[in-house]
C-alpha cells in the first residue's frame, strides 16, 4: 500500500507542476511571449538609440553659462521627470494626434515618447558628471589653449564618463521595464501576452499566473543582467584608464 501511495502523491505533484508550467509551452505561447519580449526590447532599444545622443548634446549644453538655454533645458528635464510616463504615452497616442489631425502608430509613439524621456534623464546624468570634473583640470586645458569644445572632448568627457555609465545602464533597465505600460497604447508587449495566456487558461490552469510571471521575470533577468555586467566592465576600464 505504502509505495503506491507515494507514487500517487508524487504523480499528483508532478501533474500540478506540469500543468501550470506547461501553459508556457502550449500552442504558440512560447513564440508569442518571445515576440512580445522582442517588441519590448525593440522599443526600449530604439528609444535609447534616439535618446542617448540627444541627451549627451543637451547635457553638454547645460553646462554653458547661458541662463535662457539653461532654463529651457531644465524645464524640459523637469517636464519628463514630473509627468508620469503613462500620461506622456496617453497624451502622445490619443490626445496629440486628435488635436493635430495626424495618425501615428503605437510603436512610433512609444519610441519617440520614451526617447524624449531618455534624453531628459541622460542630459542630467551627463551634466552632473561633466561638472564633477575639477576646475583645475579645465583651467589646465584653457592654459594649453583649448577651446570650449576641445575642453569638453579631451578633458571633461574622458574624466567623467565612468560616472555616466552606471546611471545610464540603470536607466536602460528602467526603460525596458517601463515597456510594460505599452498595452495602454495597444502595443502588445511581453506582459500583455502573459496576461492573455493566463486568462485564456484560467479555467484549466488556475496556477498559470505563477509560472507565466515567473517566466517573464526570467526573461527580464536575462535581458537586464548582461547590462549590469557591461556596466561593471566599462566602469572598471574607465577607472583603470583614468588612474593608469
Amino acid at each position, binding site marked *: 500500500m505504502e509505495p503506491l501511495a507515494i507514487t500517487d502523491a508524487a504523480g499528483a505533484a508532478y501533474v500540478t507542476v506540469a500543468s501550470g508550467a506547461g501553459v508556457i509551452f502550449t500552442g504558440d505561447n512560447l513564440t508569442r511571449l518571445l515576440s512580445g519580449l522582442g517588441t519590448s526590447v525593440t522599443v526600449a532599444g530604439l528609444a535609447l538609440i534616439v535618446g542617448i545622443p540627444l541627451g549627451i548634446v543637451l547635457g553638454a549644453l547645460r553646462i554653458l553659462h547661458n541662463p535662457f538655454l539653461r532654463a529651457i533645458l531644465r524645464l524640459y528635464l523637469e517636464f519628463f521627470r514630473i509627468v508620469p510616463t503613462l500620461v506622456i504615452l496617453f*497624451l502622445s497616442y*490619443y490626445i496629440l494626434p486628435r488635436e493635430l489631425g495626424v495618425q501615428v502608430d503605437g510603436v512610433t509613439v512609444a519610441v519617440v515618447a520614451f526617447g524624449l524621456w531618455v534624453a531628459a534623464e541622460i542630459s542630467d546624468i551627463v551634466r552632473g558628471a561633466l561638472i564633477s570634473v575639477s576646475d583645475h583640470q579645465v583651467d589646465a586645458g584653457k592654459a594649453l589653449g583649448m577651446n570650449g569644445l576641445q575642453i569638453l572632448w579631451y578633458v571633461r568627457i574622458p574624466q567623467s564618463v565612468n560616472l555616466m555609465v552606471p546611471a545610464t545602464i540603470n536607466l536602460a533597465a528602467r526603460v525596458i521595464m517601463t515597456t510594460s505600460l505599452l498595452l495602454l497604447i*495597444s502595443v502588445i508587449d511581453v506582459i500583455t501576452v502573459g496576461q*492573455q495566456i493566463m486568462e485564456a487558461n484560467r*479555467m484549466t490552469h488556475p496556477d498559470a499566473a505563477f509560472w507565466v510571471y515567473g517566466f517573464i521575470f526570467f526573461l527580464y533577468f536575462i535581458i537586464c543582467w548582461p547590462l549590469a555586467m557591461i556596466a561593471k566592465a566599462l566602469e572598471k576600464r574607465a577607472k583603470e584608464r583614468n588612474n593608469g
Partner: protein
Amino acid sequence: MFNLKKIAAGVLAAATLISVAACGNGPDPAAGGSSASGQQGQTVEQIKKAGKIRIATFGDLPPYGYVKNDGTRAGYDVALGNQVAKDLGVKVEWVQVNADGRVDSLKSDKVDLVLANFTVTDERKQVVDFASPYMKVSIGVVSPDKAKITSADDLKGKDLAVTKGTTAETYFTQNYPDVNLQKFDSKTQQFQAFKDGRVAALADDNTYLYAWAKDNPGYTVGIKTLGDESTIAPAVKKGNKSLLDWMNNEIKTLTDDGFFEKAYESELAPSFTSDIKPEDVIIK
C-alpha cells in the same frame, strides 16, 4: 539663480495646466471629420475601400474577448467582430485595449468599432455612439446548492459578499438595507470569503457569476437578474452615422438569422453552467 528657478517653475505649471486642459477637451468637431455633413470617423465605404476594419477588443476576458494558446482571438465579442468583417467583405485588424482605452481609441480614430463588453451608460452615450445591443447583463446572486437563495427577500439579516464600487454594492445599499453587506476590495477576496462560508451568498454581474459557478461545482446562480438590466452594445465614434446605421442594420439581420444563438452556443455556453439559457444573456 533663484529667480530663474521661479520662472522655470511658473512656465512648467503653465505647461501642465495646458496639457491637463487638453485632456479635458470634449470631442473636437473638426478632428477626423471627412465631410461637411458632420460625418465623423471612417464611413462604411472608406472601410470597404481600405479593405480592413479596426476593432477594439479585450484580450483578457474569456469567454467574451481573449487570445487562445495558438495566438488567435476568440470569444463572443470576437465572433461578432469576425462576422461584421465578413459581411463588410473586409479583414479585421484587432486592437487590444484596456477598459479605460475604449472611449479614447474611438475619439482619436485609432479604431472604427469597439466590441469589448462595452456596457451602455448615459455618461458613455455623451462621448460615443452605441449601436443596437447584442447582450444583456444585470446583477445576479450566487449561493451554495444546499442553502440556495432564490429571491432578494431571502437575504434579509444574512451576510452578502460584494466588491466595492460595483453596481451590486450600490443596488443592495439602496434597495435592501436589511441585508448585511460584506464589502471586499477585489473579486478574488469576495469569492474566497464566499467559498470559506463566511457569507451566505455573493452578488456581482450575472454574466461573470455564470462562468464562476461553472468552475465551482456546488454553487448556483439562484437569482439571475436583479434591478435594472443593462445592455452591451457595439460602439462607434460619436457622429459616425454611416457605420452606426450599418451596424444597427447588421445587428438586426444577425438577430433575425439566429447568429447570436449560434455564437452563444459556441462561445459562451461551454463556460456557463447548464441551467443558463441563451435568453438570460442574448437579446431577441
